Structure formats: structure tokens, C-alpha cells
């Protein structure tokens, strides 16, 4: 195994292996996690083995078993459709007014699959390899292999459902390539792939609603998990229209509630994306893994002012044809970019990473954009004391392919850009800047996607397992659908083979306790009667997170952030102002619950980031870099998943380590040069 942490790579003031404990005092160490339930043996056989060994449930018994699924994105929608079709009783929940509006709908660029339609050297193994490498060797090998393996079926399934993927003239499916890879394996539907995939899953799910196997609860927010006699047995949800607190019981609970990037306030996530479902489960005993791994996406529309409520992504597929540059000379930064001659432009990604160029992975592209701006070569308006933008230029592509071809590929993205910025990207280069986009952290799950609470399964972005410290483009959609259509239905079956479990009813103490805690919390929010709005707290938390736990982190900054968050939390609970009542639609009340959970999560993210004194993927610790400023991993110290256990009161959280063992792949320093 090549050593990525040779002593010679380290600066002298760093301690030797075994001595890093930046987070001493902020956590206690728990037992390691030894069993992930992945079958042994050759990696290519593991999923087949697991599927075969998973016990069966006969069709007559399936009708007697009930499943709650929170979330109707790709992960939850696909699972509801598949499990409903299999004959189980499914109850599906989402906070939007329709399942079709889940945040997956916003995904633009595409979905990977190892179809090798281009015969360009792709294979299941290569997709596996690229994904593990792209995640900077911090994902779980057996999960990623399975993902690559089932990717092939996903495309078949979606096409059968009528997903209108892009096609070539002969009627066959078209592909493009995405950041971090050198083959064309990304399937897409113009810039709206997530929308089309989600509509496919949504329609499949609606078919089951009509068939009576799936019951839908829209505008319902899950606020608590019910853990009775050691198993997840239901949820407490608030009907967001009537305010009624409802108890829903089942044999098993699935969380497919998406990611928590909104902890940063400004992100590319939907306004309602939240951590509540996951965080409530965490408080009930589910471990939270690698919470600090945040993906910063390089191609977002830059921030224009402090009124902004969210950031908009420009699909990374644009990097296939757009060239990224900044002026070589600082004084050119305020010029019209069209007046800057070729020789005065610095196509910095092509210069530094000649073999990947503009297609380097997201963490690298993001960090380099930040470096350019920090150096004073950013473009666009001044925000704070520097310009936060680099150019993404389509001039060459338009010359090479013609405007029509470019239009056909990216039209809606160009329109969106023009609408937001008021500039026409066919004429003036786009301006882009990195923004928070996706979280690789999430609830810890084993190979079966089961959390540390028996009977609580977690899928899609809400779990942690497949993307390591950085997610390659077009792989989250793949994971959501893989989990929902092809993985969970098998693993949950094995769990349900022990069911139906003892009936519990609303008088069970676990139900009473969960209900009461939800009711008390709501009353608390409404009764604080302070002076500050929920949004003002959310914004302040977001600033702290972006400043100290964003693109670059230092031990000092993280310690400071933890103190600031603790103060913010105390202020929140004494000075919050939520108007209106609990028994109607009340959007401030909904946000209050979400922000309260984000504050607690933010603190844990900082502790996790403080503990991890290495740079890997989206986690860049300034203390750990090579001489030329690239991320420096420390495999001897940190090749583990950090799984955090919640503790009550002022007790510090408990860290459980799961060692990452690679048998089918060699851990290497990641290089795209």
C-alpha cells in the first residue's frame, strides 16, 4: 500500500502518527465498530451472496407487514414504489404538497451507470474504482462496488418507466462525461435529469397508491422516531395543514429524508431540506457518521448580496464544454472579459491538471477557484473585500459546435443563469463560484442500510456510506435509485422475515414519550416570545459554518465556531420569536424545529472536523497539505469512518471508529495531474 503520509511529506511542526488529538476534551472514545455485515469473499460476489442469503417473505405474509418511509425523493420514492409493488403496506411521508416535489427534482447533470455503451474502457470495476478514488478513499468498498454493479439495472428500469433520456440519432441512449472521470458514462435528460428520474419514481409510486399498497401523507413532517423495545416502530408526524400531531406505527421505518446542506443557510438545497428526521433518530441512538464531509460544488452562480435565500447550481456538465479561467493580471479583473486577449487569460485548471483539465473533481475545482479569488484574481462584483467569481466560458464551444448545438445541450441552464444574473451567457462568459451542495455525511448504516437502531433503515443522501469524503458528479442520483429500487427491498426483506413484530399501540410508553416530547417542543417554540426570527438564527449559524467549517478548516477556527454555536444555541432557546399557533399551517414554527436541529448538528460537524486532522475530499484542514497546496491525507491515522453517538446533557459525544479496509482496491494518493 503506497504510503500517503510519508514523514517527509509533513511539515516539521506536526506531531508524529498517533499524536493527533485536536478534539481532545470535545468527545470521548467509544468502542470501535467491527461488523458492517458485508459478506466476505471476492468483492464481485458479495451482493449476490447477500441477496441469496436474505430470507424470503411469502406474498401472503407481506400484506401483514407495514413499512413507513419518510421521504419521496429518489431514494424514498423508488423504495415506496418497489415495496408497495412487492405487496407490503407502505406509508409514505413528505413535507411538500406532493411527492413529486422532493428535492431530487432539482438535480441537473446526470446519472452514472457502467453500461459501457461508448466502448471507451468503462466497466463495473472502473466505476467502482473511480467512485472510491473520487471519495478520497473514505467510503466503504463493498457498498460502492454494489452501487456500481446495480447501476446498470437502474438505466433499464428508468427507460422502461418512460424517462426521456437524451438519445443519439439512431435512437440509442446518449452519454456524456462528468467531473473526475475520463469515460462517458453519464446518462442525462438535458439539464433536468433529476426531474425526469424523480417523475419516473413518483409515477411508479402513484401507481401503487392507486393499487392501495402505498398510502401517501403529503404536507406531513416527521418530528420523532418511536423506538419501542429496542426497535424502530413508527414515527410522530405533524400534519402541517391542521397542526395535528399524528402517531404512525409500523414494523419497520425507513428514513430517506435527504441531506442537511442547509445547515449553511446558503446552499443549493431546497428551502425545506432539513436534518430533522435524521437528527431526531440520532438523538434516539442512531450514529451520525462523518458529519463534517460537505461537498462544495464549484459551479454555482455567485452570491450577489445578503438578501439571498439560496444559491443556484449550474450543472457540472457545463465543465465538459465550458473553459474555466481568470485574468492573469489583477488589473484585468474589472474589464469586460471579452476584451481580455487569450494570452492574458489563465485557464488554471488546464494548466495545473493537464490530464483532467476542467473536469477535475469538485473538491479540487472548488478549492482552486477559491485560491484564485484569494489571490485577488476573482471577477464580478466585490462581495466583502474580494471578488468571488471565476469565468466559465463557452466561446470556444460555440465556435467549435455552433450555438445551436450548445443551446440544445444546455439551454435551460443558460436561461436560468440569465434570469438570475441578467447577463446572457451566450455572449458574456458565465461567472461561477463554489457553494455548499451535498453532504457525504449522514446516519451510519451497515451493508444492509440499517442504522444502529434495529428496524431503522436509512437510504439516499441521508446515509453516509457510498461517497467517502467527496462525491463524484452523477453518483448521488445513482445511489438514491440503487438504494430505493434494488438494495433496500432485499435487505429489508431479511429484517421483515422476523416480523410481524409484537403489536404496539398508542399507549406504549415509547409512543407516549415520543408524542409528549414533540408537543412540548412545539409549545416551547411558541412560548419563548423573544425578539429574533428563526431566519435570523439560521443565517447566523450559516455564517459561522461557512466561515469556519466551509472550504478550509483550521483547529483554531473550529474551536471558535464551537463556542459561537453554543452561544447561539443558548440565545435561540431564550430569545426566539415564533408567532401564530400550533393548530394551523405555520411556516415559522416548522422552521424553528429545523433550525434547532441544525444548531446541534452544526456543533457536531465542527467537532468531527476538528478531530479529523487530515485533508481529504471536501474536508480541507489547512494544517494538512502538501508543499504545493494539495490535500494531504493521513491514512495511518484517519482511514476510518467517524460514527458519533449522541449523549444527553452536557456529556461530550462518543466517537466510534469503523476502520476502512480495502481489499479490492489499493489506497493511493489521489492525483489528477
Amino acid at each position: 500500500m503506497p504510503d500517503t503520509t510519508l514523514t517527509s511529506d509533513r511539515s516539521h511542526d506536526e506531531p508524529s502518527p498517533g499524536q493527533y488529538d485536536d478534539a481532545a476534551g470535545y468527545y470521548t472514545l467509544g468502542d470501535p465498530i467491527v461488523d458492517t455485515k458485508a459478506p466476505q469473499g471476492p468483492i464481485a460476489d458479495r451482493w449476490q451472496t447477500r441477496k441469496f442469503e436474505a430470507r424470503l417473505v411469502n406474498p401472503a405474509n407481506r400484506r401483514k407487514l407495514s413499512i413507513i418511509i419518510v421521504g419521496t425523493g429518489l431514494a424514498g420514492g423508488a423504495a415506496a414504489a418497489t415495496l408497495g409493488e412487492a405487496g407490503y403496506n407502505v406509508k409514505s411521508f413528505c413535507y411538500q404538497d406532493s411527492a413529486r416535489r422532493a428535492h431530487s427534482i432539482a438535480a441537473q447533470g446526470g446519472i452514472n451507470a457502467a453500461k459501457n455503451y461508448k466502448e471507451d474502457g468503462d466497466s463495473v470495476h472502473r466505476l467502482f474504482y473511480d467512485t472510491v478514488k473520487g471519495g478520497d478513499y473514505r467510503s466503504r468498498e463493498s457498498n460502492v462496488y454494489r452501487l456500481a454493479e446495480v447501476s446498470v439495472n437502474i438505466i433499464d428500469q428508468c427507460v422502461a418507466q418512460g424517462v426521456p433520456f437524451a438519445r443519439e440519432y439512431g435512437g440509442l441512449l446518449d452519454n456524456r462525461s462528468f467531473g473526475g472521470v475520463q469515460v462517458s458514462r453519464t446518462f442525462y435528460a438535458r439539464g433536468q435529469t433529476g426531474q425526469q428520474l424523480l417523475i419516473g419514481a413518483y409515477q411508479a409510486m402513484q401507481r401503487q397508491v392507486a393499487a392501495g399498497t402505498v398510502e401517501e401523507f403529503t404536507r406531513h413532517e416527521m418530528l420523532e422516531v418511536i423506538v419501542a423495545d429496542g426497535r424502530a416502530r413508527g414515527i410522530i408526524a405533524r400534519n402541517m395543514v391542521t397542526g395535528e400531531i399524528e402517531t404512525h406505527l409500523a414494523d419497520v421505518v425507513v428514513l430517506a429524508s435527504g441531506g442537511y446542506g442547509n445547515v449553511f443557510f446558503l446552499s443549493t438545497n431546497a428551502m425545506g431540506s432539513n436534518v430533522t428526521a435524521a437528527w431526531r433518530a440520532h438523538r434516539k441512538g442512531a450514529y451520525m457518521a462523518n458529519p463534517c464531509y460537505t461537498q462544495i460544488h464549484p459551479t454555482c452562480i455567485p452570491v450577489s448580496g445578503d438578501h439571498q435565500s439560496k444559491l443556484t447550481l449550474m450543472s457540472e456538465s457545463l465543465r465538459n464544454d465550458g473553459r474555466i479561467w481568470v485574468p492573469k493580471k489583477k488589473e484585468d479583473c474589472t474589464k469586460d472579459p471579452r476584451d481580455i486577449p487569450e494570452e492574458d487569460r489563465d485557464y488554471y485548471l488546464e494548466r495545473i491538471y493537464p490530464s483532467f483539465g476542467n473536469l477535475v473533481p469538485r473538491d479540487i475545482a472548488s478549492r482552486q477557484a477559491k485560491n484564485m479569488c484569494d489571490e485577488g484574481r476573482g471577477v464580478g462584483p466585490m462581495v466583502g473585500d474580494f471578488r468571488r467569481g471565476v469565468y466559465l466560458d463557452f466561446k470556444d464551444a460555440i465556435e467549435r459546435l455552433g450555438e445551436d448545438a450548445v443551446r440544445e445541450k444546455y439551454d435551460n441552464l443558460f436561461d436560468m443563469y440569465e434570469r438570475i444574473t441578467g447577463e446572457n451567457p451566450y455572449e458574456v462568459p458565465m461567472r461561477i463560484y463554489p457553494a455548499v451542495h451535498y453532504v457525504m455525511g449522514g446516519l451510519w448504516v451497515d451493508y444492509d442500510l440499517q442504522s444502529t437502531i434495529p428496524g431503522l433503515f436509512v437510504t439516499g443522501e441521508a446515509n453516509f456510506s457510498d461517497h467517502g469524503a467527496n462525491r463524484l458528479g452523477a453518483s448521488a442520483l445513482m445511489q438514491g435509485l440503487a438504494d430505493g429500487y434494488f438494495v433496500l427491498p432485499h435487505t429489508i426483506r431479511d429484517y421483515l422475515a422476523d416480523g410481524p413484530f409484537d403489536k404496539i399501540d398508542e399507549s406504549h410508553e415509547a409512543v407516549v414519550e415520543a408524542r409528549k416530547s414533540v408537543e412540548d417542543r412545539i409549545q416551547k417554540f411558541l412560548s419563548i416570545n423573544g425578539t429574533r426570527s428563526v431566519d435570523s438564527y439560521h443565517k447566523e449559524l450559516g455564517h459561522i459554518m461557512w466561515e469556519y467549517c466551509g472550504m478550509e478548516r483550521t483547529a483554531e477556527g473550529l474551536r471558535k465556531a464551537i463556542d459561537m454555536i453554543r452561544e447561539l444555541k443558548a440565545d435561540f432557546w431564550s430569545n426566539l420569536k415564533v408567532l401564530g399557533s400550533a393548530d394551523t399551517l405555520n411556516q415559522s414554527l416548522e422552521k424553528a424545529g429545523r433550525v434547532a436541529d441544525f444548531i446541534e448538528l452544526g456543533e457536531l460537524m465542527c467537532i468531527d472536523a476538528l478531530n479529523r486532522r487530515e485533508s481529504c475530499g471536501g474536508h480541507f484542514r489547512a494544517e494538512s497539505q502538501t508543499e504545493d497546496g494539495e490535500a494531504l491525507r493521513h491514512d495511518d491515522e484517519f482511514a476510518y469512518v467517524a460514527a458519533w453517538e449522541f449523549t444527553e446533557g452536557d456529556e461530550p459525544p462518543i466517537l466510534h471508529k469503523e476502520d476502512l479496509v480495502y481489499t479490492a482496491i489499493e489506497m493511493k494518493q489521489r492525483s489528477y495531474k
Partner: protein
Amino acid sequence: MNLTLRIWRQADAADRGSLHTYEVSGISQDMSFLEMLDVLNEQLNANGEEPIAFDSDCREGICGTCSLMINGEPHGPEVTTTCQLHMRSFKDGETITIEPWRASAFPVIKDLVVDRGAFDRIIQSGGFISANTGSAPEANSVPVPRDKAMRAFNVATCIGCGACVAACPNGSASLFLGAKITHLGELPQGQPERWDRVVDMVGQHDYEGFGGCTNIGECAAACPKEIPLDVISQLNKDLRTAMKHGH
């Protein structure tokens, strides 16, 4: 910019509701329409008045959640969603009237929030292809001619926002319906259920209380995804064919 806003406030479905007037100041041209409302809501909250309820989620024009009548037009003066409408489309000092979607099949829940559950029920009645998970044939085994795929894609982009219904004097959802019928009807995979689909979906549409289409065309003019009016011709044609064959 300073603006006068006349906004529909309605405590719940049973309340009658009425327009209230608010002043906002310090609005920048770069704000989206919804960010302008966020500013107003912060003001209201500070003054002890309950913020205005309105729907939004993605704020990128793709989820179809946002839904406002702005000066009598769904999503306002531009062909886009409310979240993608920016304040540069308005003038300083303007008075803007903001109401919820108007259609009897979309009852108001509170303030500017309506219930569009009828759209889901229309999809449940047949807006899908029955493909069970796990048994799909190899994707490239059925080529789809590029023009058909493009047409299917262009209409599959409907975001289910309901602007077409809100714009239609008859409160018809024919554009929404036509978009789905055309999306699935253009593809080889959609053929086996094609005729039952159209009959069932139109039946559900009428049952939900949406009006009939009289070819006024306001729907297509208001559609943020520019779904073309000819999907309604496709819908009618499919319906005729289906009836002829006794579906």
C-alpha cells in the same frame, strides 16, 4: 425600491379572506420575488404580525411548488416561475397585487397556499407506465427515434405547478393532462396502456372539478415550461381514438 403590496390573507380554508396592504422598502433589483416576500415577512414578524404563508421549495424553477397570482397573472409578468421572477421586472413605487391560484379544484389552505392534490390523483388514475421493478429489458433493446424522444422530453418538463389551471377562465387542467398524455404516448414503452390511460385520466380530471377546454390558450401563455398548446390536440385525438376503440 419601495413597493406597495396588496396581499390575500386567509386564515384557513373556512375563512373568507381579503386583501391587505403592506409597504416594503429597501428591495433590490436582484432579489427574487420570493426573497422580496421574505423581507416583508421578517418585517411582519418583528412587528408582531404573523408572516404570510406562501409555498416554495427549490427556488430554482423546477419543483413547481411556488404559486402566486401576481397582478392577475400566474407567476407574474414573465414566462417563468415565481421563484425565478426577479424584482428587476418591477418598477420602484409600484403597487403589486398578490393572490393564491384561483381555481375551484385548488382550494385555499391558508393565505397564498393552495391544495393541488388533485394533480396527484390524476396521475394515480393512469399517468404512469406499469413497469415492475427488477424486470426491465436492456435499455437499448428498444431504440426511440430521436425526434420522438425530444418531443417526449419537451413535454415531460411540466413541473405540475398549476399555472395553466390558474390562468384558464374555465379552470381546466388540459395542458397539464395533455403534457403527460403526450410524454408517455410518444414513447414505445407507453403504448400498451395508451388508450386506457387517456380515458381514465380525463375521467379523473373531470371528477376533480377542473373545467373543460375551450381553446382559449391562456394556459400555454402562462406555462413557465412553455408546454405547447398542441398537447391538448394530442390529448383530444387520443381520447377520440380510445373512444372509437371502445376503451
